[in-house]
């Protein structure tokens, strides 16, 4: 087992725990915006696709990478826009503290 692999597993384990603890606290009220936000964040996969396109190692890789960048970017842009739109709608009936 290589050390990069072990590092990766440690990071995955820790991030999984953090995700679990953080998301457990999200109120059911916000489960829909939560899902659209995590979706946008998940589109960070775009970084892998960008490298594929930019390195231009083979035509296949460039073509697949380009489609991948398009798909992920639309998730990033659309995901952030709709999450913010939804959250703006959530208002309380109590007067907000200044």
């Amino acid at each position, binding site marked *: 087992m290589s050390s990069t692999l072990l590092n990766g597993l440690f990071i995955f384990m820790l991030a999984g725990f953090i995700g679990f603890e953080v998301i457990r606290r999200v109120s059911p009220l916000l489960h829909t915006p939560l*899902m659209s936000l995590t979706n946008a964040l998940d589109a960070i996969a775009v970084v892998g696709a960008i490298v594929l396109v*930019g390195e231009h190692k083979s035509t296949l890789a460039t073509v697949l990478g380009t489609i991948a960048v398009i798909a992920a970017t639309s998730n990033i842009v659309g995901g*952030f826009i*709709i999450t913010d739109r939804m959250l703006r709608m959530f208002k*309380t009936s109590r007067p907000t503290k200044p």
Partner: protein
Amino acid sequence: MNTLPVTQSVIEIIYLVASVLFILSLKWMSSPATARRGVQAGEVGMLLAIGGTLLQKGIVDYTMIAIALVVGTIIGIPLGRVHMTAVPQRTALSHAFGALCVTLVGTAEYYLRAPDVSRFVMAVLSMEVILGSLTFTGSLMAAGKLQEILPQRPLTYRGQNLVNLLLFGGAVFLAVYLVLHPGEKQLYPFMLAISLVFGVLLVIPIGGADMPTVISLLNAYAGLSAAAMGFVLDSKLLIIAGALDGSSGLILSVIMSKAMNRSFSNVLFGGFGQLQVTADAAGEAKTARSATAEEAAAILSAANKVVVVPGYGMAVSQAQHKVRELYDALTKRGVEVVFAIHPVAGRMPGHMNVLLAEADIPYDRMLDMEEINGDFPQTDVALVIGANDVTNPSARTNTTSPIYGMPILDVDKARTVMVIKRGMSPGFAGIDNPLYYLDKTLMLFGDAKAFVGNIVRELGGSEG
């Protein structure tokens, strides 16, 4: 420890900052007061990560990247501007896009590296591609069902589970073979194709009422496949983002399946809506009482406390704005109005909350099942709008009912129950609801939007 070149160190530090921002982003989602800050943190993190990636020295061609980023943005903007009622299908579609990205990158990486792929990388790459491609087609099917391009009812056939099991087994077998012999390039397309078909067949038999669980599960798969991609590319940022998304999807899936008292495997392989035909075939002549909008308005205006129970029917008839008018009219008369929201009401987690928020109903009036259930005995009127199975008392009492054991909203404990419904036909799952035949229940037959509008008009008229 070998030192990295300066640019590479800078990029890694940018990724580290982005990871912190992603975690903060989710942390701030815990309350509506800080949630928008969470979105901003996510946006900054994303911009940093993309900017840092563009610094990578391996990148020789920026034209295609720029074009792809622009095209993606052009597609993304309308997807962010869809109507709130279309949010479930939009979410399913974005799971499909995310999974598509992961699958394509995995495929490109395989063909670039094969046969020089270590066993571990081949194993995670296979996992990435299998999960990614089944999530891609599965999410497309889910989106199609939610958009009603595909039938919402479960499509089942004999031997379905066996076929699915064989397909999945086949994909895993090919994956294992590729791990042992990564050079066998001709096998890779088969693994991909089988997983794509499996995704279709996995979601086709699932009915609309199970969509909240399925969307959450697909969310978890999308996250896990992205994390697997992080292992392939040795990207810590991607592993973190994938793990966060995966755990989010997993937590939501657990909440949803608990709220239906069903296991994952039951949702995925159960084919809800099939077993119910035999249930409750006694056919005893039961009668339900119906009432007019005028009568309903009179009872509502005399109440002290009204609990509104919205369901998918409210979303279908887009009644949320009329419900808001009813809320205003009753609140003005001093009636306390709150909303009781079952975790699986609607088609995705939190669906009802978003629709009610869209209609400007304050979020502190929306209560979840645990918060509200103790209040029903003190409630004068429970007004059920387009919800069915989540109010069915057989879940508590009738051990032979297919939904027995599912936690429900105890609307039958309220003094009066009103149900707005198109007709007496049983709900999505095909289960008869004894709630409708109680003495204290009044059936209000009609379209949710029109009927609520009529009640509001009656309330306004008698006030004037």
